[in-house]
């Protein structure tokens, strides 16, 4: 089996630009509305899709994604619906990497092997489990590795040089750099801080580095895309879904296209063409 994440990061690198990683919550606002929104992300130019697994108590998320979680659960989204969304996405988009992001309890309620096997069968490439640090790797890591699903770890502004090896031990797919000490979608990181952090992470690992938390505009995405291998945008997209509900897909596509365009404009190939 080809590794979709590795293939996509390599292709983006070849094109001289950062990968665009976009987040939406599965089932927001409804399970029936989600496929069109996922298609809009791809059509807008997203390279990698993070699909949020809703949870009643998303304590690492800011208001935007928390509301998305509650909209999804409020409309009746079940775990089986999420894997169905992933399975049908994989059939429509055989090459676009899909990462499931969420909290430990909904992932592990039926056991880690069940979860890992569901991920593999649904064509999910990686998992980000927000509230399972390396210290609790035994809960989820071994099962994902056995199923050939990447466990994507997070590095944060509080992850110092002494701790970084612990985070990297068992990390795969890519490394997600959380740019601000905080919850999703609230503060913005200073560009210099992002640059310094990415530089340190690159010195410590060969994994691609994707930067997220607080990235809301094309300008910010472009700035971060000049140093990182990937740029993650979540809350800004989720806000569009919050405003437009079932009719959000075209608005999502339009916004994602501006992000994608900004990243592509960084590419030397683009500059040559434009010249």
């Amino acid at each position, binding site marked *: 089996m080809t590794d979709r994440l590795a293939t996509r990061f390599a292709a983006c690198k070849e094109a001289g630009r950062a990968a665009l990683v976009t987040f939406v919550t599965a089932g927001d606002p409804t399970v029936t509305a989600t496929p069109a929104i996922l298609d809009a992300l791809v059509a807008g130019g997203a390279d990698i899709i993070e699909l949020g697994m809703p949870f009643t*108590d998303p*304590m690492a998320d800011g208001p935007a994604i928390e509301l998305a979680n509650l909209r999804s659960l409020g409309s009746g989204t079940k*775990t089986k619906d999420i894997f169905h969304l992933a399975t049908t996405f994989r059939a429509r988009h055989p090459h676009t990497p899909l990462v499931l992001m969420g909290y430990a*309890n909904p992932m592990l309620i039926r056991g880690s092997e069940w979860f890992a096997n569901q991920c593999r069968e649904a064509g999910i490439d990686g998992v980000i489990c927000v509230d399972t640090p390396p210290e609790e790797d035994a809960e989820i890591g071994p099962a994902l590795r056995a199923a050939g699903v990447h466990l994507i770890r997070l590095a944060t502004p509080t992850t110092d040089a002494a701790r970084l090896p612990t985070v990297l031990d068992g990390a795969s797919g890519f490394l997600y750099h959380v740019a601000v000490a905080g919850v999703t979608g609230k503060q913005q990181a200073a560009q210099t801080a992002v640059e310094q952090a990415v530089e340190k992470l690159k010195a410590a690992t060969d994994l691609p580095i994707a930067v997220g938390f607080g990235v809301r505009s094309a300008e910010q995405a472009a700035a971060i895309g000049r140093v990182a291998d990937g740029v993650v945008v979540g809350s800004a997209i989720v806000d569009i879904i919050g405003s437009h509900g079932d009719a959000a897909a075209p608005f999502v596509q339009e916004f994602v296209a501006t992000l994608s365009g900004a990243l592509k404009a960084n590419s030397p190939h683009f500059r040559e063409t434009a010249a």
Partner: protein
Amino acid sequence: MTISNSLRSQPDASGHFGSFGGRYVAETLMPLILELEKVYKEAKQDPTFEAEFEELLRSYVGRPNPLYYAGRLTEALRADSPDGKGAKIYLKREELNHTGAHKINNCIGQALLARRMGKKKVIAETGAGQHGVATATVAALFGMECKIFMGAKDVERQKPNVFRMKLLGAEVIPVVSGSQTLKDAMNDALRHWVSNVHDTFYIIGTAAGPHPYPELVRDFQSVIGKEARQQIVEIEGRLPDLLIAPVGGGSNAIGLFHPFLDDVDVKMIGVEAAGEGLTGKHAASLAGGASGILHGNRTYLLQDEDGQITEAHSISAGLDYPGIGPEHSWLHEIGRVQYMPITDDEALASFQKLAALEGIIPALESAHAIASAEKVAPTMDADQIIVVNLSGRGDKDIFTVADALGVEM
């Protein structure tokens, strides 16, 4: 030196009580949690830390509080018991502490740790407001800035405590997310903490959350059991036959139980809130829940088949939480402690009974433990001894009780 077969040597080095406990937090918080663990280990070895803790418990909290023989309650239950039955009931008077509950014991300990770590700001979650008041109190005592996260519904239900916290200089932040109660207050406290890790200490109110919180909260609350043990030996010349304490997160219960865990002849009952009954809305995580991960630890939780957390209900705001401390989950699984559900109605009846018979208005949380004692004492011999943890006073609950009884105030 820890004896390997002791029940008092938990958690293990990684913070687990059997399969429960652990550290399930976002990476941003991990370095701080690890630092707290280190600082707490050092503090435990430092005689000046313990001396200061004990002195504040004595001169500020008012410890030791009494172990009181509830003679009229005991006799009233004997009157309805078979001949020779009806155990003696003692009450551990935590409600006589400054701020009216056991919560202050833990807050003093954590504030000392915060100061040791150089943190000038503290935050806390609160349900009924008791832990919020206790945290605001120690923040005033230590000259720290204090923010209290409280569900918007609870802010409305517990106005006197909200005003108390404000008088004590705390900022009360109403939480409008989710069910707007204790669990959502904890979510928002965690969100604030993750955004302010560099200068903020989170004073968790119960023996739950990521390691080392369940351990250190238990240790600070163990003063309850240590005192009770000494007092009952002084009064009766022997250990009690049974300990009873209410369990929400379970800090007062683990504080009473822990010093007795290796005394095989001392039985223990933790009382869960059965709300409207186990088939209806309740807060009994052990009786009606399953193992899961929330708020930093693996423990029993009320949840659906997809692992979504379901809303808890109890007439007692302090028990109105869908989880329980991890050490209780472990003690339940190994069978060392029996956990008994008590309904809203049973607690309400005991609330009134204790007031009428002993002149003590218990917190609704504590009334659950009294109700359990009323069930169990008549099945025990008259020369047996029960110690009930009267964890808090009931002044805060008079509006709730009046409302439940249909009384206009």
